[in-house]
Structures are given as C-alpha cells and as structure tokens.
C-alpha cells in the first residue's frame, strides 16, 4: 500500500474562526485517509492549554499577564466583530442551529482521529508555558527544523 498523503498545519492564530478552520481541515483530512499534524505556535497555543479559561500561567509578570488576558480555548476571540467575546458564543449557537460541528466537537473528533498535536518550543519559551500547561494530546514540543523535517513530503498550511 502506498504511503499516506500528509498535511501539516501551522496553527499560529488563536482566533476562534481560524481555529474552526484549522480543525475542520484537520478532521476532514484525517477522515479521508491523510496523516495530519498540527503545529501550535504563538496564539495557537491558547487552543491547547490544559486549562480552557483564564489563568495566570508563567513566572514573569508579562508572561502572566499575556496568558491571563489571552486565556484558553474558552476565550478565543472572533477575528472580526468580537464584541468583547460575545460573538464566539453567538457563532457557536448559529453553528449548532445549522447542525455544523462546533469547535469542541471538531476538537474531540481530531483527537479521536489521531491527528498529531505538536507545540512550538520557542513560543512556549516566550510565553513561559511548560509541557504540563498543555493538554496531554500534545505529544511533543519541537522546533522549526524538526517540524520542517517531518513535513518534508507534506503539504503545509499556515493559519
């Protein structure tokens, strides 16, 4: 059997709508027989924080402020018209009423489909996030060279 087609997604954004795009592509690709890896970096790390709400994570004062203000998966803002965080909740309601999978459903499906989650070492260093601050599905903390090496025969998307 020929080897699987590969898709690597760089999840840079921590926006709600972009996260929906990331997980829609990831689950769709994994369900259609592709090997999928998501590389979470910078604001994308908010999606894979173990605590989904706002926490003072980190040691330095700035890192603690950034992590608190950004929050986790429950605090992702809409990239446009966020209205203080109301819009992602309204959008989730619209998605449910139209029977479109919500971010939580897609997130769980990605885990069940075996989508690979890896995190960016450098961004974690800046934001003072430790391995244990991220969900267990994040199997590795890697740098750009390892990511590119692994993605040598993959399509790469930056979101």
């Amino acid at each position, binding site marked *: *059997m020929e080897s699987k087609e590969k898709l690597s997604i760089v999840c840079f954004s921590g926006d709600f709508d972009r996260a929906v795009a990331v997980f*829609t*592509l990831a*689950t*769709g690709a*994994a*369900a*259609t*027989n592709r090997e999928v890896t998501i590389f979470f970096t910078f604001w994308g790390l908010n999606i894979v924080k173990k605590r989904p709400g706002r926490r003072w994570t980190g040691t330095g004062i700035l890192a603690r402020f950034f992590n608190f203000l950004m929050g986790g998966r429950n605090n992702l803002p809409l990239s446009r018209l966020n209205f203080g965080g109301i819009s992602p909740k309204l959008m989730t309601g619209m998605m449910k009423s*139209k*029977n*479109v*999978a919500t971010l939580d*459903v*897609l997130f769980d*499906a990605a885990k*069940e*489909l075996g989508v690979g989650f890896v995190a960016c070492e450098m961004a974690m260093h800046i934001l003072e996030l430790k391995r244990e601050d991220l969900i267990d599905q994040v199997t590795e903390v890697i740098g750009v060279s390892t990511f590119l090496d692994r993605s040598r025969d993959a399509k790469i998307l930056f979101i």
Partner: protein
Amino acid sequence: MAKTLDITGDCCPMTFVKVKLTLAKMQSGEELDVALCEGEPLNNVPCTVTEQGHEVLSIRQEGKVHHVLIRKA
C-alpha cells in the same frame, strides 16, 4: 445484519468523520449502511472508504436519501 449510520443531518467535515470513526470501531467483514444526502457526501463517502481499502457493496436511493452499504476491510 448491517449496522446503520445516518449522516443526512450532518455537514462537512462531520459526514466523513462519522463514517471513518464508525468503521474504526467495527470488526473486519462487518457491514455498515450509511444514509446520506446527494452532493458532497454522496460524491465523497464512497470514494474515501474505497481509498481506505473498504468495499462499497451497493448504493441505493430512497427518495432524497441515498444508502451506501460498506463492508469493512
């Protein structure tokens, strides 16, 4: 007796995600009857399950709903 899965109320990508996850939980040789709508699900589900090595035994239409019978590899 084939297992059944109704994805007529689902949208992309959950249509093929549900098919994939349901097949993953079944034994080799078991059959799955997937009820789906025409368009994207009907165009893609039979192709993607065939790509994954499963066998499409039949596709039949009942009104607006199509039934794809799949045997797990």
